């Protein structure tokens, strides 16, 4: 009985350790300020893109993984209409040799998770580079300060 109990506790520990240690993780690096300014006709009428804005570092040693993105927060001044959200995640490149299912088309973020790529299990850490785009707001978007948070989630089956 003791043996099984110890085995059980060890398995639980290993299970938890696998979720937290360096074998499997997702890291988001913001390479520059993700701040957009709309202060001229040109900036209201055209998309603005921050190139090389975000690097997503993934290690998924134990299993294949899927990575999703969504807006976990979007706030604005009184009277703003959130939907459609004007933020797009635009895939740029990766150094991964294990990636598949990459969404190449600009992804309009919503408050629901949307797949951005998948990766086969690997011992290596791979980088995925993304640009961030603000779609042209036009002249009907209320003036003021808006803020947003993008949440990236890596899941393993």
């Amino acid at each position, binding site marked *: 009985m003791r043996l099984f109990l110890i085995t059980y506790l060890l398995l639980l520990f290993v299970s938890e350790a696998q979720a937290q240690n360096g074998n499997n993780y997702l890291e*988001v690096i913001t390479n520059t300020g993700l701040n957009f300014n709309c202060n001229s006709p040109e900036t209201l009428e055209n998309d603005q893109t921050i190139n090389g804005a975000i690097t997503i570092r993934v290690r998924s040693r134990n299993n294949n993984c899927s990575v999703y993105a969504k807006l976990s927060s979007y706030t604005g001044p009184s009277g703003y209409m959130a939907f459609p959200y004007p933020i797009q995640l635009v895939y740029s490149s990766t150094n991964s040799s294990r990636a598949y299912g990459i969404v190449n088309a600009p992804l309009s973020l919503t408050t629901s998770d949307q797949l951005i790529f998948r990766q086969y299990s690997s011992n290596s850490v791979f980088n995925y580079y993304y640009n961030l785009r603000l779609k042209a707001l036009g002249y009907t978007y209320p003036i003021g*300060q808006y803020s947003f948070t993008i949440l990236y989630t*890596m899941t393993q089956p």
Partner: protein
Amino acid sequence: MRLLLSAILLMLSCAAMAQPKSFNGSSSGTIGVYSVLSINFTNLTGVISFNTPNDYFNGITVNNSATIAVKSNVNWQVSVASQSSTFTPMSMGASADMPSSILAIRRNGYTSFTPLSVNGQTLKTGNRGPATTNGNTFDIDTRLDPGFSYSGGNYILGVVFTLTQQ
């Protein structure tokens, strides 16, 4: 009994390991949207000439003398004023006291003209939106009526259109 308990514990262990795992990261940013107002003139009428007695008797009205297009993300108003209280004579013998009020402007489709002065007068108000928004693009008419009080010659007057937030 021990065996049963062990089996349950092992199943629980496997279940714990089989649960999908998720890992999170985030990034945050801001969008600053500031007041943006833009005004554009097209189809401007250039020199207006007084060539016949009737021009002096009746004055000259030029309909659709300019098209004004406003783009703004705030509700707006356009006012108009003369740059100086009198026309500037540009030729020998021209009068130096011809007032700016002999030049008047109205929105096309309206009846009354607004004589110009150095004080701004509201020409039109409108809602936020691009130039294609209803009312954000409009034509103006111009009227000049100097009468017979001033000498013949060439004159010039600066007209200032000011676009502001309501």
